[in-house]
């Protein structure tokens, strides 16, 4: 285990920001920490980074308590973006690299590589304050891993990025994973989490609702999402056995079943042995599971 979080609680007077949180991250894994605003994600990150003390519990990296870990092995992108406004893009990256123990000579190759990869070549000498929000975000993101950290924490890395830049970032995260970086990140965009994460933890008001692999989470719910195209109307569909919820879509209906086992019965009832244009049973998306778990909202 690279990162181990054991029974961690953070209390402010009577308020528990994080309560008895436990999870582990393997080396080279991408782990997602998801939850609503105020769920305790940033507090958890800060405790991992030893920026805040835990009230109870332990956090360790490669068996060492966080306060003894060499900070140069860590990388961090905070939720609210921050860079030196009057420093140029290039100088900013060199500064953070040097601060993490690199020499300017060694950094040159890294800086050039990432500036080109993130399409910032023409902004090298531009002051950060003159960049667009998206470009500032890219600069800060590069700054967080320019020193090739062993463990990288990304707090909402995708917020505010357009689809093209989001894809650039996704590819970069996968590239870092290939190079062996362990990554912990939070996001409100569940499709990104779904695409990137091996394991995840869902937080609600500081408590873990689920910790484990994405596959396990989906299997826990089963294939209960049924997409169909039919002549029946919404009320008729509601009346069918095992149907918990019906939602009309542009392309027919999406039914949420009480259990996967109702699928076969519904296939018979709706098809009556004839050809059906669309009948598809599938797992819930992470977005749907999240809404169900955190918001108590069904599809």
């Amino acid at each position, binding site marked *: 285990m690279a990162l181990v979080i054991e029974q961690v609680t953070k209390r402010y007077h009577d308020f528990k920001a994080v309560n008895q949180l436990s999870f582990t991250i393997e080396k080279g894994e991408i782990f997602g920490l998801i939850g609503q605003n105020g769920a305790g994600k940033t507090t958890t990150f800060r405790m991992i980074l030893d920026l805040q003390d835990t009230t109870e519990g332990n956090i360790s990296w490669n068996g060492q308590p966080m306060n003894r870990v060499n900070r140069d092995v*860590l990388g961090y992108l905070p939720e609210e973006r*921050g860079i*030196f406004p009057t420093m140029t893009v290039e100088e900013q990256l060199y500064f953070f690299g*040097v*601060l*993490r123990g690199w020499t300017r000579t060694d950094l040159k190759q890294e800086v050039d590589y990432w500036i080109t990869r993130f399409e910032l070549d023409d902004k090298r000498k531009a002051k950060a304050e003159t960049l667009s929000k998206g470009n500032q975000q890219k600069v800060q993101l590069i700054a967080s891993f320019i020193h090739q950290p062993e463990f990288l*924490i990304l707090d909402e890395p995708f917020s505010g990025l357009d689809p093209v830049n989001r894809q650039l970032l996704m590819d970069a995260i996968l590239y870092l994973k290939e190079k062996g970086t362990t990554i912990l990140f939070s996001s409100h965009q569940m499709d990104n989490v779904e695409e990137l994460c091996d394991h995840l933890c869902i937080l609600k008001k500081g408590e873990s609702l689920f910790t484990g692999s994405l596959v396990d989470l989906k299997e826990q719910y089963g294939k209960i999402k049924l997409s169909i195209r039919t002549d029946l109307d919404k009320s008729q569909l509601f009346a069918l056995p095992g149907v918990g919820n019906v939602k009309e879509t542009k392309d027919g209906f999406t039914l949420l079943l009480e259990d996967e086992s109702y699928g076969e019965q519904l296939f018979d009832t709706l098809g009556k042995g004839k050809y059906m244009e669309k009948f598809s049973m599938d797992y819930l998306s992470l977005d749907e599971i999240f809404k169900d778990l955190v918001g108590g909202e069904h599809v």
Partner: protein
Amino acid sequence: MSKFWILVTQLYKQKIKAKSFIFGTLLYVAIISGIIFWSDIKAALFSEEPLKIAMINNTKQDFKEVFQSDNDLKFSFSNDDSAKIEKQVKDEKLDAAVFLNEKDGKLNAEIATYTPLEFNDQTKLSSMIQYAGKIYSVQQLNLSAEQAAQIIESETPINMKNLNTEKESGKSEDEKAAGIGASILVGSIVYSIVISFLSIITTDVASEKGSRVLEVLLASVKPSTHFLAKITGTYLLAFTQVILIFGVQIILLLIVNGGEKWGKVADIVDHLSISYVLYTLAYLLLSIFLFLIMGALFGSLVSKVEEAGQTMMPAMFVGMAGFYVLLSGLSNPDTLLVKVFSFIPFTTVMVMPLRIGATDLLPAEPLIALIVLIVTVIVLFYISFSFYKRSVLTYSSGGVIQKIKTVLKVTT
């Protein structure tokens, strides 16, 4: 290079190239040079013609020795009649005409002008007339020239003899005057430096906190390292500015007019005691440190840079209070107000040098003020040091007290 020095270097390089620092330093140099070299600047830029003043002496006394022309006033004694002289004044061929008459055994003068004289010129002319009046009165007593000169130029020398052996040996009037002069200069410079660097460090920490770059930095360095780096970097910057300001002045004093003014400065410095110089230097170095500690702490309390001004207000008011007490003490440095403020660590640097230079105080007093200042710096450093770790990542609204309460609430 350690992380501490990387942060110090980054801050120093960034701030020393900042327009605000460059223009601020140039402004200080320009203002101080302007004050020191005002007479030379005035002579170079405004080569004014001396005022033409006609003297119409209707007495039997000869006043040519009294009314001697110089760069400001050019006197000409005339026998023309009053109407003709007044016409010349009206036509502005003359700036003024002074009619000297005798009335009841005393000299009586009337100054006729078309454009009123400037205050300085009028004061100078009046004092010459007063002097002439004294000579006239003395002459009426039929004394010899020596006797008359003895009366007019008599001055009583006053020597101070203090019988209290615990007090420092009394300072001469020259030493006290030098003490007051040096204290005005030191006080003004210290006030400006302390306030501007308090502002620099508060704004810098606040801007890093507000832009969240501080969170990235603190993931790499400990808050204590960051705190010390901010204070050290800003201290070095302040030190650079002091050296630049004084360095330029020393060079100017040495080269302008063949170092004529340097002699006058050396005179003032000669009249200052070693203890004055050492204490003032110690107060200065410690006070900059004291205000920087406060500035870093205030900067860590705010959530965004816009709030920095409001948060550092209390410290600025304290500095301003010290400066005003210094000004109030220039005419009378022995008041209770001056004594009290000379021991308050936040105002010692502005007020105590005035007392050391211009009053006869107990030798222990500057030392006590120094010890109080050192203790305050140490205590405040440790309080700020521990508080900074908790406040840099806490975001809250409200005034300073409210912010402190929030930090204490969420971190204890």
